[in-house]
């Protein structure tokens, strides 16, 4: 059997405030999978995603990427790891006052000194790469616009282009469509699916919506109160399965 791309072993996370983020998670993800993580807000979806690129440290357990433990990475090693993992966010996290071009190029800062990247001294290849990435997400005509002039869906596509600059092996998407309307939601999810199919990027997406998860995922993972309570490939998934994950949600909404 092929070596798994990501292996999460007995991982727990307790925040400084004492809040439990993750409880003894075990998870293996193969190269090329499109995984959707579902669960209520506060269930630990964001935390799980952020432990994979070490934006959050784990309290306990081990995480292996391509067979190498990453939890003790520091400084340069850590930045090298992150260069290979793209991430997109609920609020897009673009530098709003900067141009689209600059935002997309910032996906390469891991390869430049601070001095060079501040002055915009990116190589010709990287500038061309930015154009290609923007073409991929159909945003090339906005390359010189300022990020805050774009709509939410457009900003998210620019954010995807920024992640593409990294030639990522893994793409982490934290609630990428939570701030978008249904139409742009489809555009963004289609984009992620295409990256997965065409470029073979392993995609892990946090989502609120079960129907959307069933539409796009190869595999669905459910979290509840920091625990992994569900893990099935899409062929085995049934809609009634999710009652246990969203247990109590109906009560909260009343």
């Amino acid at each position: 059997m092929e070596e798994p791309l990501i292996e999460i072993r007995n991982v727990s996370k307790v925040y400084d405030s004492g809040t439990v983020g993750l409880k003894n998670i075990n998870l293996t993800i193969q190269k090329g999978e499109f995984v959707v993580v579902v669960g209520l807000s506060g269930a630990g979806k964001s935390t799980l995603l952020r432990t994979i690129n070490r934006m959050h440290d784990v309290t306990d357990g081990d995480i292996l990427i391509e067979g190498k433990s990453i939890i003790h990475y520091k400084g340069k090693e850590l930045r090298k790891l992150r260069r290979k993992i793209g991430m997109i966010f609920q609020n897009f996290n673009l530098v709003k006052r900067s141009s689209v071009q600059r935002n997309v190029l910032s996906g390469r800062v891991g390869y430049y000194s601070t001095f060079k990247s501040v002055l915009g001294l990116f190589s010709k290849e990287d500038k061309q790469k930015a154009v290609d990435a923007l073409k991929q997400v159909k945003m090339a005509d906005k390359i010189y616009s300022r990020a805050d002039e774009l709509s939410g869906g457009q900003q998210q596509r620019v954010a995807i282009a920024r992640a593409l600059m990294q030639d990522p092996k893994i793409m982490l998407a934290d609630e990428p469509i939570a701030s978008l309307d249904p139409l742009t939601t489809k555009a963004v999810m289609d984009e992620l699916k295409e990256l997965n199919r065409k470029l073979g990027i392993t995609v892990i997406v946090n989502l609120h919506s079960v129907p959307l998860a069933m539409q796009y995922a190869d595999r669905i993972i459910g979290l509840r109160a920091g625990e992994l309570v569900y893990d099935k490939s899409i062929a085995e998934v049934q809609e009634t399965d999710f009652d246990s994950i969203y247990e109590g949600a109906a009560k909260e909404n009343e």
Partner: protein
Amino acid sequence: MNEVPKRSFAQRFHLKLVVWSVLFIVLLCGSAALTGVNWGEFFSNIGQFFSLIGKMAHPDWKYIQIVIQPVIQTLQMAIVGTTIGTLIAVPFSVVAARNLVKNPVVRGIIRFILNLVRTLPDLLLAAIMVAIVGIGPSAGVWTLAIFSFGMISKLFYESIETIDDGQLEALRAAGANYFQIIVFAVLPQVIENFISYFLYTFEINVRASTVLGYLGAGGIGMLLQQSLDSFNYSQTAIIILATLIVVLIIDGLSNYLREKLD
């Protein structure tokens, strides 16, 4: 559509940014030339500045007894001055509010006067007031009264303009006169804001009043001038410390009261 657009010359070379930067640098250099900036002199004489700080680092603690009375006077000046300023400000702010006075000419004139008053720095007012009423705390009180009048009027009329117009209309419909509208519709809606702004202005006035005496307008500032003129920096230190403590206490108190209002 999905193609890189062409940029104009101005965009390509960020002309706007360049023009602003050049203008900024020219202004900075011009200012430096006009003010006779001389960093060489500054760094060669910085020792004197630090020896002054050194003297201040040894406060003359016995001087505290002398400072207490003027500190109290400073506070009293601030209280009376702010109050007089507020009392004058209330009618002006009512007339300057867009939703209460429909006549743009009257409103415009009042606002113009208020803007004029607000351009005058506190120490300038103090110098003039000392010339008018003579050396002493009265000059300070009047300075602070005028100073807070300008500030409070603006804060007040802006706060009046944010009130809910529905209540005004309801009273107008019921046949209430101008005065009744103010008492029954305006006042209840703005009173908390008013008190909060009053306290805020009071804070600022306490800070301001500590230096007014430098020009003879009463309070701790008179001692400040004496100690500086006689090179008694260990006394200056006590005055500054006393000012700091009073300002901190008043800020804390005023913040506490303002939070309680919300």
